[in-house]
């Protein structure tokens, strides 16, 4: 009984169906654990946590400079900025907007720096549905390659105060 003390010498190796199941489960667990390193080397989607320490002020200044030099248009009063293919792009999360809007070329790779100047935010690209955490003080660098053309929205999926659900942004891929 599981509520009474077991017999004095209860240790015995598993047997029968129980033993088979443990073997099967262990094999499945090994498959699970091999999948991650496998994808790390062979897969195209990885979150490696590439990041650098940065002050919010320094990051905001760099974003401003990026907007000034690379702005190509404006939508809804938000500057649309086009980084050079293969280069660095900057995105600032703040209460409550993603700044600026980005214009990227399909199948080009960018180093997308994301950080926050106030609270924690959640970068959530829709309807592609890719999600990354954004922290103040951390320059989170995603080496990203858009593989499909289209207009994508960024929503915030980390609670950041009362206007959280209004925090949106845009990425256009051409």
């Amino acid at each position, binding site marked *: 009984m599981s509520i009474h003390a077991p017999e004095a010498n209860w240790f*015995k190796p598993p*047997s*029968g*169906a*129980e033993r088979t*199941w443990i073997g*099967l*489960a262990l094999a*499945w667990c090994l498959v*699970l654990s091999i*999948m991650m390193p496998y*994808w790390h080397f062979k*897969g*195209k*989607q*990885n*979150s*490696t946590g*590439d990041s650098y320490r940065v002050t919010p002020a320094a990051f905001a200044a760099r974003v401003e400079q990026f907007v000034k030099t690379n702005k190509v248009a404006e939508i809804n009063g938000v500057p649309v900025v086009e980084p050079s293919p293969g280069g660095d792009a900057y995105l600032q999360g703040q209460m409550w907007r993603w700044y600026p809007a980005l214009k990227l070329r399909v199948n080009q*790779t960018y180093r997308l720096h994301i950080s926050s100047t106030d609270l924690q935010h959640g970068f959530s*690209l829709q309807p*592609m*549905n*890719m999600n990354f955490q954004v922290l103040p003080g951390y320059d989170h660098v*995603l*080496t*990203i*390659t*858009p*593989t*499909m053309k289209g207009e994508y929205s960024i929503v915030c999926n980390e609670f950041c105060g009362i206007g959280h659900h209004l925090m949106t942004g845009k990425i256009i891929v051409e």
Partner: protein
Amino acid sequence: MPENEEKAAEVFAHEHEEEEHKTPGTVVLTLALLISFAVYYFANWKALADVWHVR
């Protein structure tokens, strides 16, 4: 010594026999779990392979 060991093995084998349980229903239940697990898990890898490349 070998005799003792033999005896011990015998006792163990005997206990073993007594303790053998038949649980075919549980086996089917857990196999169903394993199969649904594998289907959901690999469907997610497939979905992941379809999004933008990132590192």
